[in-house]
């Protein structure tokens, strides 16, 4: 956390940057607020775009801000439609190096399909924050490694 400004700094030293969002028509933001603080307390940089962002807006922000991970909270059964759109948009923008992690109210039956699409985590209520943070760190490290390999 206490790094000299930009001097000899490797990209991998940069704090993990997470875009945390609720891209559905839904204002129940308790979960994202709790996670935002937990991620910050774990040394990550968190970007929260406010309520009701569209998948298009999320992908724009993710690319512009060069985030490692997009973390999505969905509680209102729209997860399949939203993730399909989000993943397609990431492909279109050639930004598949950004990891996508999900959580909220996601039925067991939908999880295999989401995993196939590349959406991991898919945590339900009551998951310890430490577990989610560890997963974000893992996905961020993978995303960075893939990015370096690709260059």
């Amino acid at each position, binding site marked *: 956390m206490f790094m000299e400004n930009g001097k000899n700094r490797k990209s991998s030293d940069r704090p993990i940057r997470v875009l945390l969002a609720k891209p*559905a*028509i*839904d*204002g*129940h*933001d*308790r979960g994202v*607020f*709790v996670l*935002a*603080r*937990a991620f910050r307390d774990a040394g990550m940089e*968190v970007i*929260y775009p*406010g*309520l*009701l962002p*569209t998948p298009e807006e999320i992908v724009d922000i993710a690319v512009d801000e060069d985030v490692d991970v997009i973390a999505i909270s969905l509680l*209102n*059964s*729209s997860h*399949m*439609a*939203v993730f399909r759109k989000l993943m397609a948009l990431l492909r279109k923008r050639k930004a598949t190096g950004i990891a996508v992690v999900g959580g909220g*109210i996601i*039925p*067991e039956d939908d999880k295999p399909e989401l995993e196939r699409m590349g959406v991991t985590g898919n945590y*339900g*209520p*009551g998951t*310890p*924050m*430490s577990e989610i943070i560890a997963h974000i760190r893992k996905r961020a490290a993978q995303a960075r490694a893939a990015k370096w390999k690709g260059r």
Partner: protein
Amino acid sequence: MRGRKAVGTAAGKDAYWHKKAERLSKSYAGGEATYAKWRKQVLDPWKGEPSDRGGRRLVYGSEDAARGSGEMPGVYPFTRGIYPNMYSGRPWTMRMFSGFGTPEDTNRRLRYLLQHGETGLSIAYDEPTLYGIDCDSDRAHGEIGKCGVNVTTLKDMEVIFNGIPLDKVSTSMTINAPAIIVFSMYVSVAAKNGVKPHQLSGTLQADILKEYIAQKEWFYPPEAHLRMIRDIMLYSVKNIPKWNYISVSGYHIREAGATALQELAFTLADGFYYVEQGIKAGLKVDDFAPRISFFFDSGMNMFEEIAKFRAARRIWATVMRERYGAMNPRSLKLRFHSQTSGYTLTWQQPLNNISRTALEALYAVLGGTQSLHTNSYDEALALPTDEAAKVALRTQQVIAEETGVVDVVDPLGGSHYLEELTDHMELQAYEYFDRIEREGGLLEAIKKGYLQREIADSAYARQRRLEENAEVMVGVNKYREEDERPINTLKIGVDAERIQLRRLGQVKRARNMGRVGRSLERLRKAMQSETENLVPHVMEAVQAYATIGEIVKVGRDVYGEWEEPKII
């Protein structure tokens, strides 16, 4: 926004809450000296683990119950209940919240409930409806009918209430930002069926303040929505005497992370704001206050929940009389609906949720609720199945008919601990009112994000406690099981979207666009005038089959959008 000068407070508006808190703190906790003595002489020499848990003393005594000792139900300040006989006359209303899929699906469910003796309907709308988004908008894709029933035009409301005698049932509608639109649709459907406004009864949630504080469903800046609530209030007081035009809601505040105390304080602060708004609109307090109703959460901490309900009644009655000069006993009685809490439910070992809901329902009953919704055990996973919803209803019936708690009014009244906790929460609520006043009053405090941050702080603190095992959730951070068998959950199909799109297409082809355009233009003009009542204009637009999105857009053009203050 402040109304008339408070009765009995010479210092003026701002000092009321402060003085009240100061006065209460002087008379509070009469048993402290006795406890200290007992502790020194008996507890401390006792071998074992002496401890005061959760900031509470280990035991309370008769002096702690002094303040409430003379109180009786049906009598000011109504701490023990608003009616003298409470449930011995009739039990609370078992009002189960339902709504899903298409208007046809919901109509079938409502008719089914009516056939089985229900008289109180409670309708849930889907997210696109709650956010004023038409079903054919790109944004609504994937969300139609998922969390409630979809309404885009008056046609949908006509189908929902088809064949239902609106002069005989009472209807509760959980709708906030578009409340004026859905309310106008309801009155219009009734008119089409030959039912006059004065024959209607029911409840409109319409509590926009808690949306800015907690649930985050709005279209415009607060002033615009508050003006619409004023207009609904004025229209209802004049035309629909049995209409509860607002349900001041703590449920969403609590579910967003607030403590029981914050729920109590913020909800009552909202209630007082609406009272001041009514007075400012030129109404006499006793002409509109009797139709203000409340909606609270019931969580897991037994005595804290019951004390919250009791303190709420005492504070409301006191402030309505002292500060707003209400004389009519009905203005002083805080009537409330309650719902068992959602955030205490777990997806781990979901059958345990039946126990949680049963306990929470019991607390609401012991706290004197007027109506109750019990959550289903599968709701941490999905909308409830029929079977799960039936268990939830049966839970209420077990409490009402097997436990004997309905036989005696406020059966825990007089408990040293409960009385002390009631007094304590009352005092702390006044301290919060005072703090809100110092933040510039309620509206200013909301605009600055003060209440929102208080709630987010509490939510985070609770999550930390859970992770540090300082607070237990059975099956989550204790008594966990590794290989859990999944339970059946409800699946909602995609038919609703197709059916709604088709219906909207038909409506759009059939309607007279000239009439739609003229009604929206008149609505725009009315919105630009601060004094004009918007209800008749919205009614004209919905009757021309303008869509919810078209009506909301007129408001956006006039009032603009609202961006929430930064909370995180």
